[in-house]
Every structure is written in structure tokens, then in C-alpha cells.
């Protein structure tokens, strides 16, 4: 048992393993945040601002005397929520739109793929800024904005995959036997397209974190005091020259998290390609 497990692990690409370890740390941090963090992430102590690294404050304290390490640990909850919600929304909407367009064909296909092309013509952050200027800043509006600009990738991928799968003999056979559009979509296309779409999702996860932290950094995401990594850096930026710790550690954590997802994505792709 342990022997076969060991050979399985040894066969997996290194990037996949490293990525999985990083993400496991993030998930643990999000779940066990109250146990791990030494202090309340929102508690201010104006007598202990800009403390250096110590055993009481592993990453020091910020301009309001809040413990940076605790804020980062609680921040994993926001980042994982961003990744899960944005990927779920954009993946489901994009995949359904792309697959249905390819299966129905004709004017519907033209119209859907046109709409996708139009969204794709907008630079991602600019589209997000446009949406946020219309809806107003906020965490959910930010997630919606990121989801909208991530749709085209999934729609195009699903569209191409469905066209390729439609030429497969088993789909033709099913159609000859009288299977309807929905049955073909669900039984044949969806299940076979799942792999590549899953790879795309893991590859997108890192860019979701980057986009969300950029928007929070610009002050358009979460409310100011929230322990979100991008928002923390936006705070820390004002104290550049006084203390680097409040911007150093949140940024380092974002880098590690994005790196984890990127390595995972690359690893999954390598496994799928084999």
C-alpha cells in the first residue's frame, strides 16, 4: 500500500507536488485561522505601531498596531473565496455558453461568440474598472467584475472542444440513435471536455488572486480595514520609508499563493498531456 503510494508520488511532476503543498497550507490557514493567529486581526494597539518582528508579532505590526501575521492568516479566507467564487461563476457561465453555441449552431452560435469576442476586446482590468465604476466598489462587485472578464477564456475553450468532440464517432452514433442536444451535451460532450476545462481553471486561479489583490490595492475591492492582502498593501504603501514590513509580508504571501496555483496548473497540465 505505502509502496504503491510512494511510486505514485514519485511519478507526479515536482511542480504539481509543490503547488499542492502550498495550497494545502493556504486551506489549513483559512480553516484554522483563529487557532494559528496570535492576535485578533482587527484589534488595534496604538502604543505598539510599527513593531519589528518578534515572537509576539512574527511579522511585526502595522500603522494601527495590528498584528500583520494574524491579518495575513485571516486574509487566506478572502483569497480562497475570491478564487472559488470567480472560477465557479466564470467557468460555469463560459462553458455553458460555449458548448451550447457550438451545439445549437447558426445565428445563436454567431451571436454568442460575437459577445465573447466583444468582452475579450476589453483589457481585463479596464473592464473590471468600468463595471466597478457602474456598480460601486465592494467585495462582491469586484468578484462579479473579475468573473465577467474571465468568461471568454472558458467560452472559447468549450466552444472549440465541443466542435472537436462533435466530430467524434460516438457522438455521431448517439445522434443517429436519436439523442437530443441536452443528452449529447451532458453525457458525451461535458464529460469529455471536463479535463481541459479543469486544467484551464487551475491555470486561471493565480490570475484571479492577482486581479483581486490589484483591485483591492487600488481601493476598489474590500472595505479599508479588512484583512485582505491587496488592501493591506494599499495601507502599507502609505508608510513607505517609515516601515516596509506592512507591505513586505502581504506581497510575499500573494506571490507564494499565486506561485502555488501556477505550479499546480502547470503540474496538472503535464499529467494531462501524458
Amino acid at each position: 500500500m505505502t509502496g504503491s503510494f510512494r511510486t505514485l508520488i514519485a511519478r507526479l511532476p515536482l511542480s504539481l507536488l509543490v503547488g499542492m503543498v502550498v495550497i494545502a497550507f493556504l486551506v489549513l490557514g483559512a480553516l484554522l485561522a483563529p487557532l494559528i493567529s496570535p492576535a485578533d486581526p482587527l484589534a488595534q494597539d496604538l502604543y505598539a505601531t510599527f513593531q519589528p518582528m518578534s515572537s509576539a508579532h512574527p511579522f511585526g505590526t502595522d500603522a494601527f498596531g495590528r498584528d500583520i501575521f494574524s491579518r495575513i492568516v485571516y486574509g487566506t479566507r478572502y483569497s480562497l473565496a475570491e478564487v472559488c467564487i470567480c472560477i465557479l461563476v466564470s467557468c460555469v457561465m463560459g462553458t455553458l455558453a460555449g458548448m451550447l453555441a457550438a451545439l445549437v449552431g447558426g445565428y445563436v452560435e454567431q451571436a454568442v461568440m460575437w459577445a465573447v469576442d466583444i468582452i475579450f476586446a476589453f483589457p481585463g482590468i479596464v473592464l473590471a474598472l468600468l463595471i466597478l465604476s457602474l456598480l460601486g466598489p465592494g467585495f462582491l462587485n469586484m468578484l462579479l467584475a473579475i468573473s465577467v472578464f474571465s468568461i471568454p477564456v472558458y467560452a472559447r475553450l468549450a466552444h472549440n472542444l465541443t466542435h472537436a468532440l462533435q466530430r467524434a464517432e460516438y457522438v455521431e452514433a448517439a445522434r443517429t440513435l436519436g439523442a437530443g442536444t441536452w443528452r449529447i451535451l451532458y453525457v458525451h460532450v461535458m464529460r469529455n471536455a471536463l479535463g481541459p476545462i479543469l486544467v484551464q481553471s487551475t491555470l486561471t486561479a493565480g490570475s484571479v488572486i492577482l486581479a483581486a489583490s490589484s483591485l483591492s490595492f487600488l481601493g476598489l475591492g474590500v472595505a479599508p480595514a479588512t484583512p485582505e492582502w491587496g488592501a493591506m498593501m494599499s495601507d502599507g504603501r502609505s508608510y513607505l520609508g517609515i516601515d516596509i514590513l506592512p507591505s513586505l509580508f502581504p506581497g510575499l504571501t500573494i506571490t507564494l499563493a499565486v506561485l502555488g496555483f501556477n505550479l499546480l496548473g502547470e503540474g496538472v497540465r503535464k499529467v494531462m498531456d501524458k
Partner: protein
Amino acid sequence: MNARLINRVLMLPVVMVVVSFAVFVAVRHLPGDPARMLAGTAATQDTVDAVHHSLGLDRPALRQYGTFMRAALVGDLGISIESRQPVGQEIAHHFPYTLLLGLSAYALALCFGIPGGLAAAMFEDGIWDRIFMGMTIVLASVPNFWFALLLMELFSVRLGVLPLMGAHSWSSLLMPSLTLALMPMALIGRMTRASMLAVMSRDYIRTARAKGVGLMRLCLRHALPNALPPVVTVIGMNLGSVIGGAVVTETVFGWPGLGRLMIEAVRWRDYPVIEGVTLVAVLSVILVNLVADIIISRIDPKARHG
């Protein structure tokens, strides 16, 4: 020019009309009256009505869009609510800064990415290949605003050799363009490597090698020209995210480009400016991708005839 390229050129005005209409409709559905904002809070109802009429806001929506487009075509994008300057003039003032920043970032990215990717492909699985691949995946994961703050801390605060913010001299350009170059650098490097590896396994490369062509000449003269078209495509497709990166980079460094103009406009809910900058951004993405297609059709005989 092949059929696909002609199709793209013909689609351009259609896409612009649809995008501008989408932006126009979205912006017109906002809460708040632009006439009220333009007139100021102290204005009487009569003044607001007069501004309303002078802006043409009392006419049907489709006619308003017609007027907006006709004006936009000759470069008139309305008046900024915050600065009271014509939007076209604001954009013309800020655009050169973004162009300069973007071009220098791409220059850096190409100078590092192409030779780096080339060397990694020439010595596949060698020590440089491993370092390079590791480096590019880290570069692609670093948030640019964090990298910017680290640069500022090191070169402006600690060493005091580079100006912290603004655009006062050429040395002000160094840190912003390096920050913006990170992502395209990683992407161009990885794409060059992948594309080179694909070309190196082709028959004509084996033939050239069998004839006794040296490694340098083989890579630079035989393989590289054939490996470049996908790299050009990726540069074009990536422009959108570089424009997004420019918004963040310009904000951190106080660089007076279009990105900072956009962020200020979003803060002030300055809709004419948001509209104008969005249209310019979309138009640049479409045009650059078109130029990328034209370049590919020039350098790649397969695309020219296929």
C-alpha cells in the same frame, strides 16, 4: 493579405460601434444626473435643466448615441466633469506617457525574453533552462504593485539613487518600466522556448544539422525565424493584461498616464473620461492585434498563403 486579415480589418469598425454602444448604454444607466454633476450642487433647477438641454440629454437615447458617435469620430469625447477640460485633450495629454512606458517595458521584455528563451531551448534541460523556467514562473506570480514597492524601498528610500514618484526625468522611467516588463518578460521567454523546441524537432532542422550547420547558425538563422510567429501572437494577445498592469504601475509610481487618469476618473465617477479611456484602450488592443497579424503574415510564409 489573406482573407482572414481582410475580415479582421472589416470587422474593426463593427466591433468599435458595438463596444462604444455597450459603454454608452452602461454609462447612461447610472444613478445620478450628469447635468447636476456638471452644474454643481449649488445650481438651481433652471440651470440644471439648461445644462440638461445643452448636453442633449432630453433627446431619445438612440439620437444621443448618434450625436456621441459623430462627435467621437472627430475626436470630441465630451467634457471631463472633474477637470472641466475636453476629454480628448486630457487623453492626448496622458497618452504619450503610457505609450512611452509601454514601449520601454516591451523593449525590456523582448531584450530579456527572446535571448533567454532561445538559450533555454538550445540547452534543453540544462542548468540555464532550469533556472530560466523557474525564474519565469516566479516573475509571472509576483504582483506588480509589490515589486514596485520593493524597488521604491531599495532604490529611492534606502539608496536614494532613483526618484520615488512622478515623471520628472528619464531616470523616473526606469522603475515603472521594469515593473511593467515583468509579466510580458516571463510570457515572451516561455513562448520563445516552447516555440523553439517545437521548431527544432522539424525535418528541415535535422537536414540542416546533417549538412553540418553549426549550433549558433542553426538556431539563429534556421530555427528562430520560424519560431517567432507564435511569440508575436502572444505579445498581441497579452497587450490587454499589460494595459491592466499599466493602470496599477502608473498609480503606484504617480506616472501621469492613461491608467492613472482612469483610476482618478473612477474615483470621481467622471463618466465622460471613463468612456473615453475605455474606448482608447479597446481600440489599441484591437489595432495592436491587427498589426501583430500583419507582421505574422509578413514574416511567416505559411500564414501568407494559408
